[in-house]
């Protein structure tokens, strides 16, 4: 079988589904989409302005099982991490953790992009400069 149990677990019991107020100055929102399939993903995180630690993460994904599992995993991973640590998460790690097949790689890319764009949104709110290498690359 080509799929790990983890992916099925995250898909069946997605963690951290929901949303936070967009206007909250401590909340960053990332909204991304995959044109291949027309699916969209929203990932939000509440970040402590002092410590830059991500205290809370929520997501909502309209898309395929792999996208849901990827975003669910992403929210778990970013919690407790600092912004810098979270920016270092690569889609390939998600692919590895969930054992996603090649056809589903773009779904994990979506999750990576969502993390980046949520953090960038928060940085903009805080007037922190967004480094070009942290722009969603895809």
């Amino acid at each position, binding site marked *: *079988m*080509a*799929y790990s149990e983890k992916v*099925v677990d995250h*898909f*069946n019991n997605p963690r951290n589904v929901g949303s936070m107020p967009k206007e909250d100055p401590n909340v960053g929102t990332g*909204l*991304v*989409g995959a*044109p*291949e*399939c*027309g*699916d*969209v993903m*929203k990932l939000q995180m509440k970040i402590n302005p002092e410590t830059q630690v991500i205290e809370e993460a929520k997501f*909502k994904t*309209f*898309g*395929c*099982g792999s996208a*849901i599992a990827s975003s669910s995993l992403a929210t778990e991973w970013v919690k407790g991490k600092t912004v810098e640590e979270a920016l270092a998460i690569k889609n390939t790690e998600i692919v590895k953790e969930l054992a996603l*097949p*090649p*056809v589903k*790689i*773009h779904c994990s890319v979506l999750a990576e*992009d969502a993390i980046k764009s949520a953090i960038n949104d928060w940085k903009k709110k805080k007037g922190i400069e967004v480094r070009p290498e942290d722009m*969603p*690359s*895809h």
Partner: protein
Amino acid sequence: MNEDTGAFPCAVKIQMAEPHISNNPPLVCWSCHERSLGTHFCSSCGKLVQLAPNIDYFAMLEMPRKLWVEADALERKFLQLSWKLHPDKYASATEQERELSLRHSSELNDAYRTLRDPIARVEYLLSLEGMRKEGETKQQAPAELLEEVFELNESLDELREARAAGGDLAGLKARLQDAEKSFQGKLGAVDAALQSGAREWDAALDAPGGAPDVRKKLLERMNELLNRRAYLRNLTLNVAKELAA
């Protein structure tokens, strides 16, 4: 959500097999052993030839790689080739020729199915030109579009929940209908833009030297349009499904 939680996956599909590229060297005919120049038939003995391994759909239908195609002319070409290639015409031929006819006619049918649809035709051309490969850099859609898509998806969700709870649906339904109209309109605009892109592509091909720079830009533009279209279509389908339920 597009998928179900139940069954366990069993197939790992990468993508559509890489499209074929034409202009391969002429093959040697299996029957008369001469070098054959024909797509379907040997130019020297007239027998069905082994299909070139990387022949593309445009070549299958013996037409240039252009996007503006007259439907009637395409159909005539398709029927004319069907008449010559269909397995019925080889029912009492040799095993090898029957096999060849099956290959030629199935590919011909696949080619016609793809090229007669203007959107599938653009998509196919883009993949031939190496624009739509898995894992390639793609541009994120504009934020407003994504927002709109996301909100509409949420409305759809609400409608589903309201329906499950047996609530009053009139308001939601009206919203959905409005959204459907607006998305249909956007879809129409994308299609119109694709159409003009198609004309420009053909013109560039006809220009002296084939205007490679112009064509490259056009490919990018059409790729963007197709991406936009994917979101819009997904949505209109979902909205229509929800309204019909």
